[in-house]
């Protein structure tokens, strides 16, 4: 057909979409603001719920998107997106102009900046880390606290930056609960004698095999689950973290010293996505993610004809859903081209 599609963002959604588009015979330009493709999956050690090595998924995506029809441009973010007749003109921050017959927006998400929940002291207390930091520790193979010792007791705070009006995020990020459980198990694998406490508001284990993983954490690993939102964390003189929480099921406040506190950062609209929304006229919703045309049957469709959404730029999704969503976006693109040709 000779049509040219620009995919913005070379994360899971972008790579999947680009690969599928090229398989359909389209020319694709894949733009990535970072120096390498892969997105957040590059920072993750293992994936829930089956704990597979994230490299395997990355390799799959790289293979899929390594096609002569796909031109990957790294270090390139989109400054402007304007419509010219039936095509679009994209201007990158490097000043490069790219023409596209259709655009797939796959700008993904940003992890919630944990320091915004000031009461947890992220960035202030040495032993308060985020879920992403913990993944780095997993990759390094060594879980240690600032003193260089292995933590004896680890606390995991769910819903950091999610379901929280104070930081303007009313929505549930959906993946943090299962991530917490996955990480809790991984901690126990590394440090079998440690105690792990998950502080949750509701356990939202709504994916395939998520609940099973939760059960495994309880049954096999003895991970403790305490229902209550952590109110604040503070530091003792010997670098321990004191958490205050209500054990709502016991109906009593609970105070506990913890060696390492892990914050389950939620998902937010990415900066690149916000910038794109501001310059392109793409609509966003109350949750600041892109607003798709219809929740049920038009989640890939934007308010601009020929611009399509793929993946977590519209809402939190796991890898499986992201890949499915990217494939659906490709279907929409193909249909768009075939309708326009008629």
């Amino acid at each position: 057909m000779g049509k040219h599609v620009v995919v913005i963002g070379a994360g899971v959604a972008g790579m999947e979409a680009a690969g599928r588009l090229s398989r359909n015979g389209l020319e694709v330009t894949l733009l990535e603001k970072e120096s390498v493709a892969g997105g957040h999956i590059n920072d993750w050690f293992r994936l829930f719920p089956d704990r597979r090595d994230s490299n395997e998924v990355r390799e799959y995506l790289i293979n899929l998107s390594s096609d002569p029809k796909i031109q990957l441009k790294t270090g390139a973010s989109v400054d402007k997106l304007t419509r010219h007749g039936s095509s679009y003109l994209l201007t990158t921050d490097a000043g490069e102009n790219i023409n596209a017959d259709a655009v797939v927006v796959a700008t993904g998400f940003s992890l919630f900046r944990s320091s915004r929940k000031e009461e947890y002291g992220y960035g202030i207390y040495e032993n308060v880390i985020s879920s992403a930091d913990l993944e780095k520790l997993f990759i390094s193979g060594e879980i240690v606290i600032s003193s260089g010792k292995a933590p004896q007791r680890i606390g995991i705070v769910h819903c950091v930056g999610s379901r929280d009006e104070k930081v303007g995020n009313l929505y549930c990020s959906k993946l943090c609960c299962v991530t917490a459980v996955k990480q809790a198990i991984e901690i126990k694998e590394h440090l079998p004698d440690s105690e792990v406490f998950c502080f949750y508001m509701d356990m939202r284990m709504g994916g395939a095999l998520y609940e099973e993983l939760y059960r495994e954490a309880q049954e096999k690993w003895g991970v403790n689950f305490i229902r209550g939102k952590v109110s604040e964390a503070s530091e003792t003189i010997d670098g321990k973290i004191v958490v205050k929480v209500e054990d709502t099921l016991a109906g009593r406040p609970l105070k506990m010293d913890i060696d390492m506190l892990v914050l389950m950062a939620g998902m937010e609209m990415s900066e690149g996505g916000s910038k794109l929304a501001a310059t392109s006229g793409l609509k966003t919703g109350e949750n600041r993610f892109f607003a798709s045309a219809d929740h049920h049957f038009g989640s890939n469709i934007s308010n601009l004809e020929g611009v399509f959404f793929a993946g977590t730029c519209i809402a939190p999704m796991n890898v499986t859903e992201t890949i499915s969503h990217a494939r659906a976006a490709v279907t929409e693109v193909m249909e768009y081209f075939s309708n326009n040709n008629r």
Partner: protein
Amino acid sequence: MKNEGKKAVWSEYQKEIADDKFFYVRSCIRQNFFPGSEVAFLRILKEVLGKDVYEHPCHTTCSGIGYHGDIVPFETAMTVVARQFALMTEAGYENYVPSCITSFGLYTEILDTWHHFPEVEKKIRKNLKEATGREFEAPKNLAHASDVIFKFRKEIAAKAKYKLINKNTGEPLRVVDHIGCHYAKMFPSKGVGGAEYPYVLAGMIEEWGGQVIDYPERRHCCGFGFRQYLVQANRGFSVACSKEKFESMQPFKPDMIITNCPGCPMFLDRWQYVINEIEGKQYGQNGEGIPVFTYEEVAGLVLGFDPWDLGLQMHQTDCEPVLDKIGIEYSPEDKYKLNSLNHSQPKHLVVNV
């Protein structure tokens, strides 16, 4: 502890504080328990910094303690406050500076309520007109007195005679800051540095040479709790709250506590005495207690005011250990000297002599 992290938080909570022409409103509790502090505030602003501060002789309590003791309805409290605003308007001032944190909290709450519910403000205007015939403008700038001292902390440091440094070791004094709950807990954006890491006192401590101590129960209430202290039967709760704080700060070996709320310094001071009486436990280094100060007292000391002019003799927990550490000159025999011929001393001291 990473200080950059804290600074990042502080930078997000900047607050506009007026520069001059303050309408000063006194605090009920402070006038009774820390009269020297309010005197020092006016002295510093007028004499040291040369600012225009006006005090209206007809201003009253804001009724805040009654409001938080739940015997004064919100509408009544709002109208009383509206009358204070009217006095300010009548005197031609726009920058309202309360000495009291409960008042500051109440003003903030009222202004916020009026902002969200304009019909309430309208009703209060009507009430005030009906009751007193007065009319008012809401203040252009509302800052707590500690905000004002915070704003001029550098000027004070420049004119300081002493620093919060142990003159024997050269080490900065380890200072605990205690912020009144109603300063920023209700409206974090109205306090310097926000609710979690308020900077208002920390800024003064840092500027004047001390080191801020961050201990786990730093944000805990002193335990005043209005009705919790006001009724004898409930005071066990009040003292327990302060005790929790002392227990938590003790490992950090604090040299002193500095506060910006009227009640807190009094409670943190008196409860040390009560805990010692009931449980025989004395906090602080060498069992001499942890001296508790208001920010004006500390500013006054730094500027070289006489400790007994600041009213430090009214503290139950002796301040001399800190004065000695800093190297402040004072005359021990003047401590209980009064203007009249009366030279009595507190009873426990008489017994000891």
